[in-house]
């Protein structure tokens, strides 16, 4: 019978892995890697946010079914896009749980000090908290998986929103000291203390706790971040890890786009597909909504940083091309009463090259958190806690960025004489400053949730997405009765 006793020479297994710090570190890299996958920041993550933010309109017939349905509020629990996003978020949770669970058994030694182990665990916990924040925003109370699963019976029912909130805030609070304020060299891109504090503040604000949020955001303010002089530097490959950037998801332009739903690959496939999906000369699946275009004040330079108009130049700055109507497939926008073609420029490679048809090698890092967002969140907190002067000051810092240089509040359109007027200015400033950065969807949900607005970005808007049908089918602790209302 010895003949039946085979050893697995192809790979290690869970039973003999996590033996040293290097393996734990590699597993942690695997958590980051899964954030890039096709269902998350590589692709569907930005669709999920953007289709529900009111900032985007269909580019035309080329928008595929599952996306088109979300854009018109017709998503069903079987919608493949949101199901993929749900599953992939939990892949990240699983990987993070594994690192957290196995860390205690990894021996510490001179090459793997306790502080590094603590940082690894803290990074994993940050990534897990980040994912739960996303799950919470999209679906509300979700199954709270806090250890990696070892048996199929370990399914969990839906936790309450409050339980998820408690988990995220407790978790983040506990790891703040284990995360460094900054990294250098090939650690750039890892979770920083600033990132954890921004996430913590956003979570507090999601539940209307502006005081606690303000404390965290003020800490971030004290960490040395500042605005880039040029707004557009936040969206180029050349100015990654700049002083405004708090946390980025990393991509490189080597290799083709990787379509894997877990982000796995043997080759150097580390690019993202956004440029292809949105670019003026790409598929142009989504274009800016008329409402978003109308939101920009006259002469706000951020308009041209966010969007391409027919006649603009693009491509190699040394040998620029002129964008034509014909090169932009699909729909027209109505801007200032004129039907015309307007396309997304933010996060498109067209600022420096002509991608010419299908091009999937966008390597610029995705800025998850940047300092301008922090300043605007601070403005909101100050306005809520009753210090309007501070709020106006934060707003004006963002407008005073040299490349933007917009007149300070109050302006004729945006007076700031009351809490409501300041809030209106905050809404406006967030919309134009953070356009298309996958922030507005949760902003709106947060404001609606806390009674700040009843504005719905889309007809048929439902605050929560449906729990995916596959989860209901396969999770014995969730049935049809636990579905979010409206589905």
């Amino acid at each position: 019978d010895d003949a039946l006793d085979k050893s697995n020479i192809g790979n290690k297994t869970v039973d003999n892995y996590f033996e040293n710090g290097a393996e734990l570190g590699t597993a942690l890299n695997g958590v980051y890697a899964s954030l890039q996958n096709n269902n998350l920041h590589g692709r569907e993550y930005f669709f999920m946010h953007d289709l529900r933010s009111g900032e985007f309109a269909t580019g035309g017939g080329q928008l595929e079914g599952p996306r088109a349905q979300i854009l018109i509020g017709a998503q069903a629990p079987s919608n493949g896009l949101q199901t993929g996003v749900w599953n992939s978020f939990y892949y990240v949770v699983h990987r993070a749980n594994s690192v957290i669970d196995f860390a205690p058994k990894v021996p510490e030694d001179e090459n793997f000090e306790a502080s590094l182990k603590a940082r690894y665990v803290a990074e994993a916990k940050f990534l897990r908290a980040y994912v739960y924040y996303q799950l919470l925003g999209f679906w509300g109370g979700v199954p709270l998986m806090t250890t990696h699963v070892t048996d199929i019976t370990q399914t969990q029912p839906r936790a309450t929103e409050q339980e998820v909130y408690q988990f995220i805030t407790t978790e983040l609070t506990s790891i703040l000291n284990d995360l460094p304020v900054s990294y250098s060299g090939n650690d750039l891109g890892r979770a920083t203390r600033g990132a954890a504090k921004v996430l913590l503040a956003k979570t507090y604000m999601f539940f209307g706790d502006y005081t606690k949020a303000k404390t965290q955001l003020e800490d971030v303010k004290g960490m040395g971040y500042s605005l880039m002089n040029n707004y557009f530097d936040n969206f180029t490959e050349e100015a990654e890890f700049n002083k405004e950037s708090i946390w980025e998801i990393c991509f490189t332009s080597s290799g083709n786009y990787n379509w894997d739903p877990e982000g796995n690959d043997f080759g150097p496939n580390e690019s993202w597909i956004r440029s292809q999906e949105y670019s003026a000369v790409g598929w142009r699946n989504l274009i800016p909504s008329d409402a978003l275009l109308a939101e920009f004040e006259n002469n706000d330079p951020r308009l041209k940083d966010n969007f391409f108009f027919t006649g603009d130049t693009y491509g190699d700055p040394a040998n620029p091309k002129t964008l034509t109507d014909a090169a932009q497939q699909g729909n027209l926008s109505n801007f200032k009463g004129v039907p015309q073609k307007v396309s997304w420029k933010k996060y498109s490679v067209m600022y420096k090259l002509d991608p010419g048809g299908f091009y999937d090698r966008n390597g610029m890092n995705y800025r998850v958190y940047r300092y301008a967002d922090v300043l605007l969140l601070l403005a909101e907190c100050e306005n809520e806690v009753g210090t309007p002067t501070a709020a106006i000051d934060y707003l004006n810092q963002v407008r005073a960025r040299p490349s933007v240089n917009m007149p300070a509040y109050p302006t004729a359109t945006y007076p700031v004489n009351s809490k409501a007027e300041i809030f209106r200015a905050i809404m406006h400033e967030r919309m134009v400053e953070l356009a298309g950065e996958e922030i507005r969807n949760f902003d709106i949900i947060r404001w609606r949730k806390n009674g700040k607005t009843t504005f719905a970005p889309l007809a048929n808007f439902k605050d929560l997405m449906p729990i995916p049908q596959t989860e209901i089918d396969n999770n014995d602790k969730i049935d049809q009765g636990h579905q979010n209302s409206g589905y």
Partner: protein
Amino acid sequence: QGVLDNKVSLDVMDMEVKTILLEIEKQVPVNFTYRSKLINATRKVSMQVSDARLSEVLDDLFTPSVEFVVVDKEIVLRPAPKTAKRSAPDYIPEIIVSGRIIDENNSPVPGVNILEKGTTNGTTSDVDGRYTLAVQDGNSQLVISFIGYTTQEIVVGTQTVINVQLAPDVVNLSEIVVIGYGTQKRSSVTGAVASVDAKEIAALPVPGVESALQGRIPGVSITNNGSPGTPPIVRIRGIGSITGNSDPLYVVDGFPINQSGGMSTSGVTMGGAPPTNLNSFDTKDIESVEVLKDAAASAIYGSRAANGVVIITTKQGSKDKKMHIDVDSYYGAQTAWKLLDLLNTQEYLRYGTDLVTNAGNALPTRFSNMNDPIYPGASQTYAQTNTDWQDAMFRTAPITQTQVSLSNANEVTKLFTSAGYFKQDGILLGTSFERYSFRLNSESKLSKVFTFGENFNVSYTKTANEIGTSSSATGGNRPQIQHIVHQVPYMPIYDPTLPGGYRAADASDGSDPENPVRNALMDQSKTDLVKFFGTAYIEASITPWLKYKFSAGGDFTTTRTFNDFPIYNDGFRARNTHNLADNRGHFFSPLLSNQITIDKTFGKNVVNLIAVAERQDFKNNFTNSSSQQASNLVHVLRGGLNPSITDGGDTETTLLSYLARVNYEYDGKYLLSASFRRDGFSSFAPGHQWGNFPGVSVGWRISEEEFMKVVTQISELKLRASYGKLGANNIAPFAWQSGIFTSSNYPFNNTPTGGSYFNQLANKELGWETTTMTNYGIDLALWENRFTFSAEYYNRNVDNLLLQIPLAGSLGYAVNYLGNLGKMKNWGYEFVAGYSKATGGVHFNLSANIGITRNEVTDLYIPNSTISAGSNADYGPNNMTRTEAGHPIQGFYGWKTDGIFQNQAEIDAANALDGDASTKYQDNASPGDIRFKDLNNDGVINLLDQQYLGSYLPKFNYGLNFSANYNAFDLTLFVQGVQGNKVYNGTKVLTQGMLRLFGAEKEVLNAWRPDHTNTDIPRAVSGDPNQNTRASDRFVEDGSFLRIKNISIGYNVPSDVLRGFAHGSVRRLRIYVSSQNLVTLTKYSGYDPEIGTRNNTNLTSGIDYGQFPQPRTIMGGIQLGF
């Protein structure tokens, strides 16, 4: 030295003659055949001889009442002719008739009885098959009979030369059946075993034997699936597995071929495992195929037999001890038998304008610039262009095969050797399959005790894969049919101004189908497979009743799939580097087997007993690599950009087996077979590796009972029953473990840094799946076997299913959990009937079979759980199939349509159905959209309004074979079909779904418009806001079809003519024409109703995602014998 010179020793007292004959068969390699009605074999004699010549023993036993004729190893016993005793004055002969008697292969048959009907006047044919007989007059009839062949009666009339071709009995009861680890007479078989002979296998021009079995055996369903070289889907008696492999086990000359499984531990494909297909074997080398259908018959293959066993036996040396050289060659042309009616340029513009405008979107700019030249400098405009993309992609494709074989035999050695070539081009551009094969089978007697033999095959196959299928995955991974039907008719195929020279729709066209011609002609994905496959054995006849056999075999296969995707720019899509991928695998499977066989007869008891110990290993390694060249002229990886190993693996698994079987027969009436196999397989979790697989079957030959012998019409009546347990082990090595994979990267600071993960939940109790099957059968033959009939009923239950459970997403594992969970049952009925008749020089055979299979999933892992599958955004918004307990596997599942909303008032009325007009009946419904049925009457259409819409499983499968010979002509007609199955017509979603702007079928011109409401086609609106393309009965069609699978007419050049040239060296010359799929009767509206699965994905059978259609073939061939 002839068979009759063999030495025999006997010491028997009062033993029946037939038992003595059996005893002689044990000692000497001969078989006796006789008709019990003609020969009194129950006569008892005593005999004592030692080392006597067989001829002397037979003389003692029979002469003078019985004579014997030797044909190869066959000794035919029959009443001695009584011509000598005839008294001359009875009558005066008037006519002398002579002629030659040949068999179905046109070989002369000696020893055939030719009798003048109603008299005792007769003769037998000589070694050349010639005979001469004087008969009374023209009213006389010749009765021509020979064992194993249909008796023919021919009126003499004015003929003086009567040549006769014998026709084999439909079921030859003395036929030897291969049953695994041995053989058995057909009349003694108690399990459900079906045979297909060489002639039927060779009838169809197919790359592998699986396709040749289609329609031949009830209960065996074969579905062709894909481009040439893609193995068909073979299912024996229903479906064995929900998420695993349901393919049968193939055993070639005693060697079980690896089943590649298909699951892997990492979710990464097991690149090195050779495909489980038989394309490496030339079908013309095959002597017979036996299919073991029930558990008792297949339990001898225990752990791998749950899905049935197909035993393939290749040809051995010649039967008549002469050397034969045969050349067999054909050439044919294949075409698509059906095309769709697609939009032309004018219609496309009209349809596209409606589609885009109705969605409120801007028209593509091209629509207003149709008079532009199709490329800079061209004189032709888009408006003047009307490309027929079907015409560009479908072609008349050649198919050809040639085999040269030599067979010979002498007293010491038997030899069969062949060389063959097969080439089939696909009817779609860019696809083909080609094979070179060589075979050598030999067996030699080393001494009285030892025999050495070997079967050896080496072959090379080359497959050009369809671009967009799994083996040639590109970005979108879409089948070529999809691009063909989606293409824009005003687009040119070529554009000489672009890199690569091909053109596709771009931004200004508002549509983006890939150019299928470019895919086919530029992007190359080729799979080479070299297979060395052979077994050598030595057998020792230790005593007349005891044999020991040791055999060693090996299957060595190397595969290489090379993908060569050049640089191009079609105006929209571009590839900026020449992408090369080289995926190579080695597979080696050695088999060692020890077998003891005991054959013993005690009085009326006949016992056959085997015991086997055997070990088979499976070693598999593979490396996938890629790089990118800057030039299209360089076709190797070396020196390219980004050279990388993209995958790889190395595994070894072992199967240890111990088995025994006893076949017992009493008095030729009562039959019993019992077997037991114990298997240990290394891929299961420790402690769960061993499984036991018993089988037992009984039979009662009622026709042998005295009380039945009075019913002379009945020549055979047998009842059978069996029970057995089988296993399945189609799992990847270490599937029970949770492996750590390092195929993950994250570019911190733009520097790729390795990451690791595990994405599968371990199952340390992973063990055998168990199938239990009972079988009841009856065999009936009437009128000396002219009519035969068999019926079977079976019940097949699978327990501890090796099921890949889709886990709740929240558990975080990307790979489904593999466990022994779930139960499923299949049950069914099978019928075969045959009739053969020969009269007046015409003889014909008619056989028909029908298989009825039913399936039900009886239990899944958790109550009320469901597995949904089929979803693909190009084919609608949701899954098309659902699998749950209490229903057949993967039923089509969706909504029922309920007409079309004709106006807003109807929609408003529907919205108010639940008493609240503000809640929508269907989100986003507008006039012209489909109204779906509110099955639960809650006034809203949602997931709860879905229901089962039918099954891909047919109500029954059938086959009908007719063959007839008249003089030198022969005719074969083979009809095959399925009835009562449904197809989910995904191609119709592509061509009529109107999801977004693409080419379409002309039916879309009939779409609903306010001024055109009398239609069942909904409005054209891009984006499909009402989800008119949701899974519904709109796309579920009747998939029944009847095919004339083969019709063939042949002409045998008469031997008299042949003798006239080439110094008479040509023994036989047949020329024939035949056609495959000449006629297909079906209501299915797509290209072809024979739908398999897409890229072998689970639970998507019968969904037409743009299936490669089956061709119609017309061919001519020549068969030469020397």
